[in-house]
């Protein structure tokens, strides 16, 4: 069963958004890489929907961005 790690960075703007997300990815690297968890980032900063997926993809993760009520939800997970 995959666990969702929630990261709410609403109110933060880039590049802090990216740095915080990258730190969260690094902290959960093993459970993410084993497919045990996925990271769900909530952000209201539009730029982050470009920078976060870009950086995550370059590290081998897959991302999905959905716009919900007033913010974006970026799901980051590892798929072999």
């Amino acid at each position, binding site marked *: 069963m995959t666990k969702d790690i929630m990261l709410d960075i609403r109110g933060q*703007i*880039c*590049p*802090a958004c*990216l*740095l*915080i997300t*990258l*730190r969260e*990815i*690094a902290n959960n*690297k093993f459970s993410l890489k084993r497919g045990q968890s996925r990271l769900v980032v909530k952000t209201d900063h539009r*730029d982050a929907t*470009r*920078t976060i997926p*870009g*950086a995550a993809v*370059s*590290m*081998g993760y897959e991302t999905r961005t959905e716009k919900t009520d007033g913010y974006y939800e970026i799901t980051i997970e590892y798929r072999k």
Partner: protein
Amino acid sequence: MKSPAATRTKKPRAGKSLAGLEKEKKKLNEYIRDKVNQLLTVMGTKALDEHELDESDFLQLDPIGIIALSFEQVLEHLKETNKSLGVAKNQLQAVFDTAGVCISIVDSDMRIVNCNEKQKELLVSDRDEIIGHHCYEVYCGKESPSLDCPAIETLATGRPVLVREVKKKSRHFQIVTSALKDKAGNITGVIEVSMDVTEKKKAEEAMRQAEKLSAIGLLAAGVAHELNNPLGNILGYALLALKDPALQADQREKLEIIVEQAKKGSEIVKGLLNFSRQSQPLFEEISIEDVIRKALKNLSSRLLAQSVEVTLDIGDMPRVMADPKQMEIVLMNLLINSMQALEGRPDGLIKIAAGKKDGFLEVSIKDNGPGIPKELLPDIFDPFCTTKPVGQGVGLGLSICSGIIKKHNGSISAGSAEGAVFAFAIPLERKN
């Protein structure tokens, strides 16, 4: 900005003022922020704003530490991607090389970028260096591309081009060219796929030939049947008339001409019937030497009359499965052919050789006659192909021989070198 190393060259002296230390700390912070911004740009985001994170937040976040860990993952991912790409490249190369079709990639200047093993095998047997050379030079042996070159058309239009048949290096190919494009849609080269259709073409030709022979066979049978009865009547009545004792000399002479010509006509009809009635061979174990000797015995009186010398060179041969009657027809036809070519020559010589070769029993008959005209060689086994004067044969003998040998799963060939050479080969072991 100067590196902190440069700043560090001056060691802070003991008792340095607090203001000086604050200044150095600020410089160090600026240096770290600058380097972090460089790394962030590499990670794909914009630089830190001076006011975005204050000094304490900035140091607490540990951006360099975060980016270092992220870079570690980027490198891991790149290594895995490289490994997967290497495997995929090898697999693709294997598919590329084992494909049953010739594949070649050329750039927009028509220089070969890559080609597979099949392409090299069929189209580049005579050179080692291929990559970087012009395709028209390597594959077509030309100094410039021909006007109807499909690659030129694809390079110009970007559309795929199919060429139904092209002859290159004695083989027939069907070619398809398609354009290679970059992300912007610009044509960067052409992929050329050539399928070798030589065998298919040969099979189609054989089928056409078989249909032609079948049609000729039907016609020959019909004509022979219709001519046989009137010829029989002419011959019969002429022979009857010759028995009349009251015949005058000139009348007898004319009747004898009628008999002779009717007999020639009958021989031709017999040949037509033999041609049309080519039946399936009845296989039995035979000695080809016995068949050769029997054919020579049948022709001995004619050979003697023509003063033709015959030499036999027969090696140690196993018995083979073949139809003895059909083999005799083949040998008789080939020998008669040689004898006709030697007519009027005082030193006529026919050399017969037989032996084993590559799983086949091969028999060759060579004479020292005038040989076969070069232009006739490709059609020599076609029905009604003859150089003989009218009345001396209709050109069916070799066609009959060819049909018989093919039904024995063998091959027959004709050549000309100081006389004519005919050779046929049949398998030593018959496959069901």
